[in-house]
């Protein structure tokens, strides 16, 4: 399983990379961590004529708090995101999700930008970024675009990035103070792609009413799913097990997940509801409310 031949470029600046993308056209693929791209190339499922290695571009991986906004460079390795103190403290959802991303060796090389731009329907990061209402910054040689998750993720392995555009940064707004987050997934083995995964961020007030709710899913469709209806339902209601159950039911009732050899559509839908309930109960529990 050797990859087909390609021309290799290793630009040393972002500008150079963008120029190459523009000049070489759609037969060019950017190479970030390689943990998704190289297996596909080894299987010859993907055969770029030109590979533009982004790993030589300095200052492309970083985790920076810039007033209220967390800026993560696209080439930040998963490992760095996993161990970042500021992320652990202020965006714990992201830190928790990282534990489910593949295995330690993948996280050494894999990057957040690479994973997001790969847009696997069962990947954990898109659902996390969506739950955190992150912004994806894309750059091309002609300009910059800022996209919301629903604008960026289009479908299975498909994003809104043009062939000459690169995802360069992910920005996460600060969450309201006092939120709790939880993520969990079902997978056949540790580190495999999720059969279903659910991310949630919640906040309750002093009388156990839910004042803030985000709920996203992975593995349930062509891309992540954000359960806006369920979120609206939750806000203002008392956090009880039946409220959580109803929210989980609402969120998953319209899902039509894919079937594959690991799980059927029906199984994914049913367990999405179960995992959503459990994950919400855990997050709410962290708020000090027992459901």
């Amino acid at each position, binding site marked *: *399983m*050797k*990859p*087909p*031949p*390609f*021309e*290799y470029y*290793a630009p040393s600046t972002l500008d150079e990379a963008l120029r190459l993308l523009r000049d070489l056209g759609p037969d060019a693929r950017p*190479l970030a961590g*390689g*943990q998704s791209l*190289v*297996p596909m*190339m*080894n*299987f010859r499922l993907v055969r770029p004529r030109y*590979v533009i*290695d982004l*790993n030589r571009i300095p200052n492309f991986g970083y985790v920076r708090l810039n007033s209220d906004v967390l800026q993560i460079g696209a080439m930040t390795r998963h*490992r760095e995101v996993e161990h970042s103190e500021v992320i652990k403290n202020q965006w714990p959802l992201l830190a928790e999700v990282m534990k489910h991303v*593949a*295995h*330690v*060796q*993948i996280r*050494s*090389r894999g990057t957040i930008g690479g994973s997001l731009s790969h847009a696997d329907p069962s990947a954990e990061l898109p659902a996390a970024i969506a739950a955190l209402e992150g912004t994806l910054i894309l750059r091309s040689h002609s300009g910059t675009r800022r996209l919301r998750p629903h604008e960026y993720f289009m479908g299975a392995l498909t994003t809104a990035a043009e062939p000459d555009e690169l995802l360069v940064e992910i920005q996460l707004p600060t969450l309201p103070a006092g939120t709790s987050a939880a993520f969990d997934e079902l997978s056949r083995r*540790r*580190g495999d792609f999720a059969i279903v995964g659910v991310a949630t961020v919640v906040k309750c007030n002093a009388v156990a009413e839910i004042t803030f709710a985000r709920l996203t899913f992975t593995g349930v469709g062509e891309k992540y799913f954000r359960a806006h209806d369920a979120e609206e339902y939750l806000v203002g209601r008392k956090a009880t097990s039946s409220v959580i159950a109803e929210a989980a039911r609402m969120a998953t009732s319209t899902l039509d997940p894919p079937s594959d050899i690991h799980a059927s559509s029906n199984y994914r839908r049913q367990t999405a509801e179960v995992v959503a309930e459990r994950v919400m109960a855990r997050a709410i529990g962290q708020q000090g409310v027992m459901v």
Partner: protein
Amino acid sequence: MTIRHAITVEINGRTFQSEVEGRRLLCDYIREDVGLYGTHVGCEHGVCGACTILWDDQPVRSCLAFAIQADGAKLFTVEGLAPAANELHPLQQAFTDVHALQCGFCTPGILMTLLALLKHNKNPTSDAIRESLSGNLCRCTGYHNILTAAQLAAERMAD
């Protein structure tokens, strides 16, 4: 005509200068161009972990990188572990003491993963050891003795 790129790679403290095709996988380079066959190739799609090496002290799947990307990098493979021809590294010694290998094909990759773990965590819990090895498959041992060996090595190395 195939373009070849000049690369300089440090492996186990020695510097190698070579010319490689862009698509040459790092695992093939280490094995066949440099002659270090201890790193094994089990799947070529990043699942089994047999090809795990250390790249700047981090465990990495060498089947998922191109050799050219390692230009200027510091790599470490299983051949660098034993301090001398008749001496074993404590990790290796622990492995043989408690029968943590059978066919040995997965072993170099596992040793590299554990070496990285112990570099950053001198006193890992058994859960931490298990978590770190989740990406290294073994088909012979059933893992039990590997986990025991890792714990034993950690204790010995901490002394």
